[in-house]
């Protein structure tokens, strides 16, 4: 065949190229419109959504306009919603129940706050270690401040000079100077600080820690409420909330005397022999006296009616009514705050709560869409509304502030058929699969992670095999499952046996189980806690030295390390697990076996405590506790410096 002439080739090729580019552009615009419901912003590339390969985050059902945090404009009718991985802040007119527009932000928006004058927004960017300031009148970014890892909730102080930011990944609160656009200070704030509130009198800021602080396995877990001076940012008090965890909301009482915290009380020190009547966990409203730190616990559930996964709370301006969301039951309850005050002497935190008392203050429940989160009062008088972030509904429900009836619903995006991972999120966060709807998967695995607590399942003997709850983030490709590696699939892990030993109800239906698995497999591992700061050169080489130690095959003296004792044998990349069981000498007297599923190490820095029973509260303690000399890798020839390098490498995974 005679080849075409060069000129012809060039002309035909050029035309084909232009035509192809135009067709691709048209397809891309239609594609972005379809999956996001919005016009393409600028000129996005494929890599924007398909970063790292694999399904786009839109297709996984994650990057939708999911309202994760709300803020009400103090001037009246507007509600701002931080929409997570959608990287937008939605502006909703609560009076007319209309979505006005979105403001684009350069990161995953996990928190939003409005200045006292309503002229400035502060938005947490979860994936950027930063917050940005936004002028809502001009939809323009007007400042950016570096804060801690994975910032979540934030709040302005009363005069708008400071912003308090809960850094969930760092365990700190950042205090940001608004005018100077700088971080004034960082202070410790418990484990996974999540939401912030400022008192009406401007004196105090409160930060609630979502997770219980790390303790030894036999200690009662406590989460923490950090109280700060709202004018200076200095820590005033760190109040322990006994037995509490998964605290995701808080509000000051209007008289600024109390902080109200919906939370779960977990009873992980009891063997799980039943579920009823809060045996495993119950939901309460913790009331903390700001002046004294005294804690009262008001049950949110009744004897036979659970209130799973309490989330956001909003208190009316007169202090008479509060609305609390139950994320696992898809309801918002209204509460009589005055009745609570009368019954307070009966609700001391040192006692077990009396569920029957809840009828005194729980008024009614309003059904909302799946996974209600933050709750905010907006508007005044007859137009006062309670805005509810319907996280899985991608919408904001507007309830009547008078009685809690649903008045309107504002959709933040077009209705899209939910795919398997999206449906799986619903299964994961619903308490319908547990006996009496007591808890959901999320109750122990917030955002698919771990609560860091140990549990004793009855089936292997009371007091036997007390095991650490493990993170589900990044488990794709890491079968087998369960601490003893006996479950080859997630379906098996979460199927019939799970219903028998934990939820004590009918097993999750097969189709929904498949959706659940799809969701679990879609989650990436947690972000590593350590960051490299080029301003401090000496912190970057530790990871490099640690890498060499992890992969070494000889000791410092040149002696060959047996293959079974080399770190990389059991923990090879990419998941840093060889997907088998191993006995590394960590079995205890209460264990039925000493051979455990080798955990994957991606995100290990965020998965404290460690070992199958959680006895090591830090990575160091894996090797510094007695009884594991050179059974769990060869470390006894390392000095402290080298051990630290190894740990810095692990923290970087």
């Amino acid at each position, binding site marked *: 065949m005679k*080849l075409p002439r*060069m000129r012809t*080739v*060039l002309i035909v*090729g050029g035309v084909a*190229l232009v035509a192809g*580019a135009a067709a691709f552009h048209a397809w891309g615009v239609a594609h972005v419109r379809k999956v996001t419901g919005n016009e393409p912003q*600028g*000129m*996005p*590339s494929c*890599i*924007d959504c398909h970063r790292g390969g694999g399904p786009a985050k839109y297709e996984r059902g994650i990057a939708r306009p999911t309202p994760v945090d709300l803020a009400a404009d103090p001037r009246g009718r507007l509600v701002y919603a931080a929409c997570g991985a959608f990287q937008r802040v939605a502006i909703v007119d609560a009076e007319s129940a209309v979505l006005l527009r979105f403001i684009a932000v*350069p990161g995953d928006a996990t928190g939003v706050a409005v200045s006292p004058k309503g002229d400035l927004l502060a938005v947490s960017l979860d994936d950027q270690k930063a917050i940005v*300031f936004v002028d809502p009148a001009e939809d*323009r*970014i*007007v*400042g*950016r*401040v570096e804060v*801690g*890892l994975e910032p979540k909730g934030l709040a302005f102080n009363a005069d708008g000079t400071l912003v308090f930011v809960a850094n969930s990944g*760092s*365990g*700190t609160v950042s*205090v940001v100077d608004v005018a100077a*656009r*700088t971080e004034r*200070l*960082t*202070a*410790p704030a418990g484990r996974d600080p999540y939401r912030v509130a400022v008192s009406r009198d401007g004196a105090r800021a409160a930060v609630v820690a979502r997770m219980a602080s790390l303790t030894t396995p036999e200690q009662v877990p406590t989460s*923490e409420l*950090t109280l700060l*001076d709202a004018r*200076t*940012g*200095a*820590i*005033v*008090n*760190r109040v*322990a909330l006994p037995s509490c965890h998964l605290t995701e909301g808080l509000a000051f009482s209007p008289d600024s005397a109390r902080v109200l915290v919906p939370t779960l009380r977990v009873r992980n020190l009891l063997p799980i022999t039943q579920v009823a009547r809060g045996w495993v966990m119950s939901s309460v409203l913790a009331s903390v006296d700001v002046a004294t730190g005294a804690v009262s616990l008001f049950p949110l559930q009744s004897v036979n009616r659970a209130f799973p996964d309490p989330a956001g709370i909003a208190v009316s301006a007169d202090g008479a009514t509060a609305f609390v969301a139950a994320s696992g039951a898809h309801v918002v309850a209204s509460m009589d705050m005055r009745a609570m005050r009368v019954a307070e002497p009966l609700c001391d935190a040192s006692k077990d709560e009396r569920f029957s008392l809840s009828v005194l203050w729980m008024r009614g429940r309003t059904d909302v869409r799946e996974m209600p989160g933050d709750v905010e009062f907006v508007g005044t008088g007859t137009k006062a509304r309670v805005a509810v972030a319907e996280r899985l509904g991608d919408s904001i429900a507007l309830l009547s502030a008078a009685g809690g009836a649903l008045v309107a619903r504002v959709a933040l995006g077009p209705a899209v058929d939910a795919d398997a991972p999206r449906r799986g999120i619903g299964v994961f966060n619903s308490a319908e699969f547990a006996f009496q709807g007591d808890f959901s998967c999320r109750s122990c695995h917030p955002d698919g992670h771990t609560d860091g607590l140990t549990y004793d399942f009855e089936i292997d003997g009371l007091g036997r095999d007390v095991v650490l709850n493990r993170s589900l983030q990044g488990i794709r490709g890491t079968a087998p499952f369960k601490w003893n590696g006996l479950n080859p699939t997630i379906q098996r892990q979460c199927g019939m046996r799970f219903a028998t030993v934990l939820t004590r109800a009918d097993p999750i239906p097969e189709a929904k189980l498949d959706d659940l698995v799809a969701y679990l497999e879609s989650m990436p591992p947690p972000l590593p*806690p*350590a960051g490299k700061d080029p301003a*401090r*050169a*000496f*912190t970057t080489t*530790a990871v490099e030295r640690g890498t060499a130690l992890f992969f070494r095959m000889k000791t410092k003296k040149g002696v060959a390390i047996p293959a079974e004792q080399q770190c990389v044998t059991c923990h090879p990349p990419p998941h840093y697990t060889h997907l088998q069981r191993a006995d590394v000498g960590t079995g205890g007297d209460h264990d039925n076996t000493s051979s455990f599923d080798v955990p994957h190490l991606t995100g290990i820095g965020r998965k404290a405590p460690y070992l199958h029973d959680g006895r090591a509260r*830090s990575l*160091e*303690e894996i090797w*510094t506790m007695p009884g594991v000399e050179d059974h769990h890798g060869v470390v006894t020839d390392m000095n*402290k*410096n080298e051990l*630290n390098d190894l*740990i810095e490498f692990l*923290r970087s995974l």
Partner: protein
Amino acid sequence: MKPILRLAIPVLAAAGVVAFIALRSVGASDDARAAEGPDVRPEPMAADPWAAPADLAKPVLYFDRWETLTTKDGLPSDRVSSVLAEGDDLFVGTERGFAARRAGKWTTWGKAQGLPHGFVTSVARDPAADVTWLGTMKGLVRISGGKVEVFTQKSSGLQNDVVYHVRVDGALLWCATPAGISVLDTKSGSWSLFDQDNSIMAEPWCYSVATGPERVWFGIWAGGVVELNRRTGAFRDYHDPDGELEVDLLKDDGALHEVTSFISYDSGMLWQTTYFGVARFDGHRWRSYGEKDEGIPGDFVVHVAGRGHTGYIATDQGFGVIDGDANVCVSYKRGKDGRTAVRTLTKGKETDVRTYDTGPASDYATWVQPVADGIWVATGAGLSHGFAAKQ
């Protein structure tokens, strides 16, 4: 042209165009984000650690009235090891626990309150966040909001449980231990360690840390002073050129001695204390001060606090002040009558002798801190507060 090239050229050209478009779109989105707001970054640090500020603190040499706090006032022990004053608040480390006086009220912490050991070697504060750090003989302690948290060599990156000195440096916490220097980045939770294996330390026994613009100094037992440029990670060290551990042969020839008991930095001046006197370094020249020639209270010096170009020292023979620029040394010593003899030497010659009715509780001084109205001196018999004499 070969046929294959006739096909290859347009194909390659098309591929190049596609690649250009793809890269341009990525760049465009990044540019769009970068253009959305002002770039807010901290100002770069000063490059010269030896530059003296224009508003150099003036030396205060005389303190004519003293008051002493003891266990009767709320301290857990009279044997006071360290003190830190913040305005009217006081934070005191003793051999039997820690005490804090806030708004006139004392609160004490001992083992019952969660301290791993009663001997508190040093106190450091992050006043903005109201966080207190303690060095103890059995671990590092953080106290905030009333909560006590302990870091040990087994539970954290701390090199050794014996923490001689702690120093807050922005988001970093420096800890001097017998096994080296441990640094905690309080924002990320990462630890960095320095010892004889990864630095130029001759040995890891570190007694103290001083921080300044871009540089950190370690005071090392039998290791002189080691300087770290924390931006580049480069080290340099300062040794006694004598090479003698028993005596200081030549004055002003370098670091005074290899055994550094403490170091302090302020306003372009680094102070080194040893068991053979005190030295200071202005970035170019070392000057040393001893009991015999310069008139410090004693050569066994355990602590120095630099303020401006003045060094306030704690020795086992009394409390002293060194005005380095004027070469004036003032020593405070208790007489047998309980009064305090104050002797001043200027350029080695006695120029003033006076007596005060009150003075530091004991000549065994362990820690000093100059404050706005005078000086705090920790001693083996209580914590003494000296008020500056009217000039």
